[in-house]
C-alpha cells in the first residue's frame, strides 16, 4: 500500500499574522488581540514577542498587559480572519481536494497522496505552496510532511514559529520518542499526570509500554495511546469539515452586561442578521441556539427547535428568546452572546397553490423583504426592527 503524504500548514499566531498583513507598521510591534472595549477581556491571540513575555491565549487582558507592557492591543476581527482563511483554502485546493481546515486559526491538513505525477513530490508541493502564500498573501506558514495527521502536527509544533519538517515514512516512532508527552496531540493533563506518577515523561517511554500494560493504566484509552505513542494515526483528512452546516452570529458587549433588556435587544439584532443570511441562501433553519459566555469564562448553550424551519425574523426571534431564557440561569454578567442556527431545510422555490400564511405573516414577509432590499442597497444595520432597540 502506498504511503500517505499529509502536509500540515500552520500560520503561527494567525490573527496576529493577518493583522500585520493589513497594517505593515505592526510588523515589529508586540501584539495582543483581545476585545479592547470589554472591561474584562481575555486574550484571543498574541504575537511571538508577547508569548515570550508570558502572555497566553485566554489570559485576562489586564494581566497580559502587565506581562507585556509594550504590547499593542487590537480588537479581534473574526470576519477578516475568516476571509484570510478562505483565501488560504482557495490556494491549497488547487493541489488537492482533500483539505481539512481549522476554525479561523490558520491550520490546514492536505492529503497529497498520489499527486506526484500531477504536481511533483509532496515536499515540492509544500515548498511551492509556502512560496505562493508568502508571495500572494504575505503569510509565512510553518509546514511539515509526514505519513499521517498526528505526526505532521507534532512536526509543525517542533518548528514553529518558522520552518519546515519532513518525517519520513517509517521514522515516526523514532521522531516522537525523545519528545515530551505534552507534544502528543490528544493526551490530556490527567493522563500526563498519571504517567508522571510512573516517572514517564517522554513519548518514547510511553511507547515502551505494551498494549496490555497500557490497558492496566488507561483501560479504554489504551489503544489510542498505544498507536499515538508509535506515531500511528489512521484518521483521514476530512474536506469541508468546517463547512456551512450552521449560521452563526455573535456579539461581544463593550462592557459585560447584566441587563436583560440589553441582551434581548442584541438577540433581536443577531436574529435579523441570521434571518437575512438564511433568506439569501434560500434556507430554513429548524434549530436556534443561544450561546452565552459569562464574565467568569464559563459558557452555556441552550437550543429551541421548530419542526418546519423558518427564515422569518419574527419566528426566529421567538425561538432565540426562548433559548435565551433557558440559557441565562446564573447571576453572573454576560460578556458575549452568539446565535447558532442549524438543521437547515432548503426553501422550496415553487410557490404554493394555496395561501397558507395568515395576513399578519404575509405582512411580516413583506416587511422583511423590504428590509433586505434596504440592507443590500445601503449596508447592514441601516434598518432594524423596533424590537432591536
Amino acid at each position: 500500500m502506498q504511503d500517505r503524504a499529509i502536509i500540515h500548514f500552520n500560520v503561527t499566531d494567525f490573527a496576529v499574522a493577518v493583522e500585520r498583513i493589513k497594517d505593515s507598521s505592526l510588523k515589529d510591534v508586540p501584539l495582543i488581540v483581545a476585545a479592547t472595549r470589554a472591561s474584562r477581556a481575555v486574550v484571543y491571540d498574541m504575537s511571538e514577542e508577547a508569548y515570550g513575555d508570558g502572555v497566553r491565549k485566554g489570559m485576562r487582558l489586564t494581566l497580559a498587559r502587565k506581562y507585556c507592557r509594550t504590547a499593542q492591543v487590537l480588537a479581534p476581527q473574526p470576519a477578516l480572519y475568516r476571509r484570510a482563511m478562505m483565501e488560504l483554502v482557495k490556494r491549497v485546493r488547487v493541489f488537492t481536494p482533500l483539505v481539512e481546515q481549522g476554525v479561523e486559526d490558520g491550520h490546514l491538513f492536505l492529503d497529497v497522496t498520489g499527486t506526484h505525477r500531477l504536481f511533483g513530490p509532496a515536499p515540492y508541493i509544500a515548498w511551492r505552496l509556502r512560496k505562493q502564500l508568502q508571495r500572494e498573501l504575505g503569510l509565512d506558514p510553518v509546514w511539515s510532511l509526514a505519513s499521517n495527521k498526528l505526526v505532521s502536527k507534532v512536526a509543525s509544533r517542533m518548528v514553529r514559529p518558522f520552518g519546515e519538517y519532513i518525517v519520513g515514512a517509517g521514522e515516526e516512532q523514532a521522531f516522537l520518542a525523545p519528545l515530551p508527552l505534552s507534544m502528543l496531540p490528544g493526551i490530556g493533563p490527567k493522563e500526563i499526570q498519571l504517567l508522571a506518577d510512573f516517572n514517564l515523561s517522554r513519548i518514547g517511554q510511553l511507547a515502551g509500554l505494551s498494549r496490555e500494560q497500557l490497558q492496566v493504566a488507561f483501560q479504554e484509552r489504551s489503544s489510542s495511546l498505544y498507536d499515538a505513542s508509535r506515531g500511528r494515526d489512521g484518521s483521514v483528512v476530512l474536506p469541508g469539515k468546517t463547512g456551512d452546516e450552521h449560521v452563526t452570529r455573535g456579539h461581544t458587549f463593550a462592557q459585560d452586561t447584566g441587563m436583560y433588556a440589553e441582551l434581548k435587544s442584541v438577540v433581536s439584532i443577531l436574529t435579523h442578521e441570521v434571518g437575512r443570511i438564511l433568506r439569501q441562501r434560500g434556507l430554513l433553519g429548524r434549530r436556534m441556539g443561544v450561546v452565552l459566555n459569562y464574565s467568569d469564562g464559563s459558557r452555556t448553550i441552550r437550543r429551541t427547535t421548530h419542526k418546519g424551519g423558518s427564515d422569518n425574523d419574527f419566528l426566529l426571534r421567538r425561538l432565540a428568546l426562548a433559548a435565551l431564557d433557558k440559557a441565562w440561569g446564573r447571576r453572573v454578567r454576560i460578556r458575549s452572546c452568539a446565535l447558532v442556527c442549524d438543521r437547515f431545510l432548503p426553501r422550496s422555490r415553487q410557490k404554493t397553490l394555496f395561501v397558507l400564511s395568515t395576513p399578519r405573516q404575509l405582512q411580516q414577509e413583506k416587511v422583511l423583504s423590504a428590509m433586505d432590499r434596504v440592507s443590500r442597497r445601503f449596508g447592514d444595520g441601516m434598518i432594524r426592527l423596533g424590537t432591536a432597540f
Partner: protein
Amino acid sequence: MRGCSSPEKLCEHAASLGYSGLALTDHNSLAGLWPFLAACKKYRLRPVIGVELTGAKEDPGVVCLAVDAVGYGNICNILSKGLCETGFVLERELIRHAAGIVVLCDSLSLLEKLKNTPVDLVANLGDRPTEQAGKLRQWTQQHSIPAVAVPAVRMANTNEAPLLNLLEAIRTNSRLPVQAETSSLSVCLEAPGVYWNRFAVWPDVMEETDKLAGRCRFRGPEFGIVMPPWKADGAENSATKSLRGAAYQGACKRYGTDLSEAVVERLEHELHVIDSMGFSSYFLVVRDIVGQSFVGSAKGSTRICGRGSGAASLVAYCLEITNVCPIKYNLYFERFLNPGRTDPPDIDVDFSWDERDTILEQVLSQYSGHVAMVATIIRFQMRMAIRETARVYGLPSGEISRISKGLSSIHGICGEPLLASLQRMPAMARGSLTDVWPEIIHLASQLRGIPRHMSVHPGGVVITPEPISNYVPVQVAAKGVPVIQWDKDGAEEAGLVKIDLLGNRSLGVIRDCIVSIEETGRSFDEEYWQPEEDPQTRAAVAAGKTMACFYIESPAMRLLQKKAGTGDFEQLVLQSSIIRPAANEFVREYIRRLHGGEWQHLHPQLALVLDDTFGLMVYQEDVSRVAVALAGFSHAQADGLRKVMSKKDKLLQLKDYQSAFEKGCAQRGIKPEIRAQLWQMMLSFNGYSFCKPHSASYARVSFQAAYLKTHYPAEFMAAVISNQGGYYSTFAYVSEAKRLGLVIASPCVNNSEIKWKKEQRKKSIRVGLMAVKGVAVETMERIINSRKAGKFFSSVDFLQRVSPPHDECRALIQAGALDTLACGRNRSQLFWELAQFHCLAKNKKSRSLFDVQFPPAPALQPSGERELLRQEYGALGFLCRDHPLVLFNRHRGQNSTRVCDLEQHLGRRVSFAGWLISGKLVSTKTGEVMEFLTFEDETGIVETVFFPRVYKRYARILSSGSAYMVTGCVEEEYGAITVTVHCLRSL
C-alpha cells in the same frame, strides 16, 4: 432584608412628620424590638409592638399587635410555634392565643374564617382606598368589624429606593434591576395628612386607625432580671444556702481547710452581693453545667477556662468555674457584680472545642423548653456588602474575591471614601476598579450595618424559669438548636441572663498533650500544677519562644515578650491586654517604662487607678475607673462608656460620653491637654479589649501551654497540629517542631494514627494520616480499623484490606505513607500496583466473565529526589525531613545570611533566603498600607517590616508559602531582632 431603614431612622422620620406613635411589625420576627423601643424613647413616640405573621406559603398573612403583656406573650408563643413546629395552622393558633392581641387581616377568606371566634379582628385596608379595600370595607360594615388604614412601609424616604431594590435582589437571589412587581413594594412613610386625604372618602377608617393605636397600650416587656432556675431538694432560699455551702467547700479544696481571713472576708462579701442581687441560682446553674462536663467526659480529663469578668469572682473560683485565684492576682469582684450594676453580667466558660457541642446538647436537653441559644444578627459589613452587591450586578466570583481581599487592610481608615482607599491599595491592579465598581462600592457603602440574616451566637445560652417562648420568640437555627430572636444586647435589655459556653482549641491541645504524656507511663500532677512558677517556662516566655502557645504566639506578642523580657505571670496578664489594634504607641511606652524609663501619672489622682499598669490604661475597667476618678462619672455611666468603647459604629454614642467626660474633668480643674491625652488613651480601646480577670484567665492557659511546650515539646507540638487552628499553618508548626530539635517521621499506614503523635523514641513526632491532603476521614478510619487485625505486610495487602479510592491512595503514596510496604520497590512501581488494583476493581464491577491476567510490570525507574520532594510537599503541604528552601539552594547566592545569624549583623544590610509564613496588613496614621511579615529558614524565624513605599513596590509578588530573597537592615529593640526590608525577589 424586606426593609432598608433602621428602626431609628423610621422613628426619626415618623417624628419629623408629626406622628405620635409608630408600630413595628417585622415579618415573622421580633428581632428589631429593642432598637425600636430605644428609638421610640429617643423620639418620644408611642411604640406599638407587633409582628406580621404568615402561615403556610400560600396562606394569607396577618398583622398581630400586642394590646398588653398577655398579648405580647401570646405573640411570642404563636411566632415560636410557627417557626419551630411543622403542621402549624395560623388560624388555629390565633384562636388559641387570642387574648391581648389585635389581628389585622386583609384577606376576606381569612376574615370569614375568624369572624365568630375570640380573635379580636380588624380589617387591613392597606395604604389607599382600592377596589379590594372597598370590598373589605363593605364586608366589615356588614359584620360590624372595624377597618383601618395600614401602609406597608419598607423605607423612610424615597431616596432609599435603590437600596431597597438592591436588598430585594439580594434577598431573592436575583439580578438587578429587580422585577417591577417587587419594586412596586417600595413604599415609604408619608405624612399623616397624606393618608387622611387619601381616605377622605372613608373618614371612619382613619378614625378607627387612631382608636386602634390608642388601644395598644403595651409599651414593651418588663421582665426584670430573669435568672436561670435552680431547684434544690431543700427548703426555700436553698439557692443561697447551697451556694454558701458549695463556696466554702470549694474554698477548702482550693486553699486548705484553714481558710485565711482574706479568703473568708472576700467570700462573705461576694456571697452577700450575690445574694442581694439574686444571682445565687445563676452561679449554681453554671456550676452544675461545668460539673456535668467533668462527669460526662469519657476522657475524664475535661478542662474548662472560666473567663470574662466572671473570673474576678472568688465564689466562681471556689466552685471551679474559673481557674485563677482572684485574691492572688488582685482581681476586682466589682468589675463583675456590684449593687449599682443594672444590666445582668454573664459568666463565660470555655470548653475544649471538640467537647463543647456535647455539653451544649446536655444543657439543651436538660432544660428543654426553657432554654435557647442567643442569636447574632449578622449585619452587612463592608466586605460582605461589596460581595453581595457585586453578585447582584453579576460580576464573577473570582473578580469579587480579588477586590474584597484588599478590604481588610483599609478597615478603619476613616474620613476617606472607600473607593479612593481601595484605589490606593498597592495590591490592587491598575484599572481593577473601573466599569461598574464605583457604583457597586457606592451602593455597598449604604448597605453597611443593615441586618443580613440571623445566626447563632458562638456560645450564649439563656435559661428561663418559665417556658422561654413566653419571653421571646424562639426559632430553630440551621444547625438544629433552638435560638431566641434577640442578640446578646437584646437579651441583656430584656434582663435575660446569658451563660456563654464556648469552644477553645488550646484546651483540647493541653488535654491531648497530658493524655499523651500519661500514655507513656509518666505521671502528671495537675492538681498542684503551677506553670507560672516554673523557671524554665518563664525563661521561654521571656525569650518569646511561645509559638503554638495559646494567645501569645502571634509575632506581635512574641516580640512584645522578647522586648519585655520578664516572663512573669503578672506582666503576661498585662501584655495580653495591652496588645490591641489601636494601642501601638502605648505598647512602646509600656516597654520603655518597664525597662526603667521615667514616667509620671497624667494626673495625681490616677495613682490609685493606674499604678499597676505604669500609668497606662490597659484593661477595660481602667476606662471606667478613670472616668469615675477624674470626670466624676457614676459607676453605671462609666460602665456604659466601657461598653460603648468595645462596640463598632460607636462614633455617635461616643460623642455624648466625650462631652460628659470633658465637662467632668473640667469641673475638677484638669487641664485640656491632659483631658485630650486621657481621651486618646481611652480611644485605644477601639474594637476589642480585655478586662483584667479575662486576661488573667487567658494568661493561665498560655502559661500551661508554654510549660508543656518547654518540658514536653514532642507531645505538645503533636497535640497542637492535631487540634488544628492556631495562628499559623501546619507548615509553620512543623518548622517550629524541627527548630525544637524534633524529628518529623513521615506518615505511615502501619504506624500513623489519624492524629499526630509522639513516637516511642524520644524527640520524634509521627505525622498523622489527617495531614495527607484529600484523604477522607472514612478512609483513615478504615486504615486504623484494618490495622487492628494486624499490620499491613505489603502494598497489595494494604490495597486489598482498605480499598482506598484512587486519588486518596495516590496522595498516600506521594506522602510516603506506603514506603514501608514497598519492599525495595520504588514509588513509580507502587503507583503501578495501584493502577493494577483499580483495573481489577473496575473489572470486578463490570462483572467480566474472565479473570484479569496482568502483564508483567514495566521496569519503571525511580523518580529523582527533587520530584519526590515536590510530591511530598504537594501531598502534605510541608516536608518531613527538609525545609523546602533546600530546593532553592542554588539561587540563594553566596552572601546569603542564615536567619539564626542575623543578630550578628545588627545595624547592617543583609540578604537572606526566607519562606513567607504569615503577614499582617496595617494602615499607618496617614492611611498608607504597610505589612509585617514573618519569614523563616531552616535555622530560625524572623519578623520583618515592609514600610509603605517598599510594600507598594512588592505587594503584588508577596504570597504565603513562597520563597524569597529578602534584603534589609537588621534592627534590634530591647533584644528583639527585626529586619526592615529594602528589597525582595522571588526565588
